[in-house]
């Protein structure tokens, strides 16, 4: 890192990491335009941070703040890539320079005049002595070269490993981001599905309400007619209903079922004699007709379902309340003519 007093360095880092409030930032910007030395200090600190990050040498608070700043300053990622390239080039150049100077280090110095005279006389040594000296020289040179090669390869290996580690880190980060994206898409799909189901549910309830209203109207008319016929005193207060109506979603079968929320719990008042059920089929239910079985008995065969405006299919049926079990789940199996089966599960309480 560059030589700056800690206060200035801290201010520069806050500026470079995008941590300053606007007014303070503007003051720094004015200074960078008017104070040349300060401008180059900013550049120098930024380059030092980028180089340290590219070499994996940035630690602790600086590392955290630097990484947080990458989203604010998109061009910094390119600067990191450039720093990695520059670092590789510098290392390459140094290796080449070392390789070029290596043979010089092991070769003999150029002899002077008197040394050449002495060498002339030394040539009179025996051939065996000369061959031995040459072999020794070759051995020393060879050993030196092997040592140099080993050091060079170890350095290259370390560099390769470092690059590999950085690449794996980047891949891991990319995978994490892709995973997050998949999760977000899945959540979005689930919400869409729930929204569709709720829409279907609401439409079925509307139709059910309409039917209930017309049924009530019919009963009121009937009552009025009986009153008139019998000329009896007004009927007693409101009676307990004997029919309970519920809307049920499939618990299993078809796409997207097996949702624990789809197990319906219903509470039956003491006077309820029968239960009116509306079974909402999934939107992707393709069958034209359906059969319904409950506790080993076929309640309906080849029944054509009703359809809401949004295309949800539904079946309505009435089951005597006494047939429901309180001790265990009540499973109503609906099977389409395409052999797809939907189970509607009810827990009944009294």
């Amino acid at each position, binding site marked *: 890192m*560059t*030589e700056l007093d800690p206060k200035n360095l801290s201010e520069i880092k806050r*500026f*470079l990491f*995008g941590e300053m409030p606007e007014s303070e930032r*503007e003051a720094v*910007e*004015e200074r*960078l*335009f*008017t104070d*040349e*030395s300060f*401008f*180059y200090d*900013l*550049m*120098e600190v930024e*380059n030092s941070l980028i*180089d340290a990050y590219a*070499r994996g040498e940035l630690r602790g608070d600086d590392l955290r703040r630097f990484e947080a700043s990458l*989203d*604010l*300053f*998109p*061009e910094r*990622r*390119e*600067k*990191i*890539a*450039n720093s*990695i*390239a*520059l*670092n*590789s*080039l*510098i290392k390459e*150049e*140094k290796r080449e320079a070392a390789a070029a100077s290596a043979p010089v280090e092991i070769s003999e110095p150029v002899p002077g005049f008197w040394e050449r005279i002495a060498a002339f006389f030394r040539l009179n040594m025996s051939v065996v002595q000369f061959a031995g000296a040459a072999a020794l020289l070759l051995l020393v040179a060879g050993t030196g070269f092997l040592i140099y090669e080993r050091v060079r390869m170890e350095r290259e290996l370390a560099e390769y490993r470092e*690059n590999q580690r950085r*690449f794996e880190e*980047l*891949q891991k*980060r*990319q995978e994490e981001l892709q995973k997050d994206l998949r999760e977000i898409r899945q959540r979005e799909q689930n919400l869409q599905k729930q929204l569709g189901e709720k829409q279907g549910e609401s439409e079925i309830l509307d139709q059910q309400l309409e039917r209930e209203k017309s049924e009530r109207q019919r009963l009121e008319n009937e009552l009025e007619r009986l009153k008139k016929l019998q000329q009896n005193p007004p009927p007693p207060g409101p009676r307990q209903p004997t029919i309970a109506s519920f809307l049920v979603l499939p618990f299993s079968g078809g796409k997207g079922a097996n949702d624990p929320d789809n197990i319906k719990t219903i509470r039956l008042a003491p006077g309820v004699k029968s239960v009116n059920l509306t079974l909402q089929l999934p939107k992707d239910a393709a069958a034209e007709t359906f059969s319904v079985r409950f506790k080993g008995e076929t309640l309906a065969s080849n029944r054509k379902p009703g359809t809401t405006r949004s295309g949800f299919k539904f079946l309505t049926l009435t089951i005597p309340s006494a047939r429901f079990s309180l001790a265990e789940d009540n499973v109503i199996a609906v099977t389409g003519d395409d052999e797809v089966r939907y189970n509607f599960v009810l827990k009944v309480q009294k």
Partner: protein
Amino acid sequence: MRIHLADLSAEGFEKLLQRLDEDPSRAAERYEELRLKLVKFYGWRGCPASSADELADETLNRVASKLEEGVEIESLNAYACQVSRFVWLEFSRKRKEDHYGDEMPEQAVDPVLPEEADERLVCLRKCLAEVAPDDQDRQLIIGYYDTDAGGKLKDARRSLAEKFGLKMNALKVKACRLRSKLEKCINDCVAL
């Protein structure tokens, strides 16, 4: 994304250079330095590198136009700073308008993959030959950013400054300018 571009006449540009320095070669140098400051200003505001260059040129055009109109400017650098803020505001507003309704964040920069790293290294070699054609500049940039010296980095840089007969501050300025040019050249080369 483009903002309104000011027209720049040859006369306006000439006035800007004269205002920077009476000596033409020094004026060109000062112009380059002011432009570098502007590019960095926009980069430090979070502007992508490609747009930062365009905005820096636009700022210089507007300053030159004002000089041509005869507007009194006390400090050219301080004035450029003020103009750059307006240009940045216009750019940010335009960017917001263009992205209105977008719920997705801006495209993140992809990680550098090994193939791209190789390509960048090839570009770096090519750019080094362009930006630092003489051996001295090449040695300076390689020597300055060679950090193998570790704790003795300052000593290594001092030796480098002595070698080139420069003061430490001048060495830093030269290294920063060279690196900036080199990076721009590499980015353009990789984008091709």
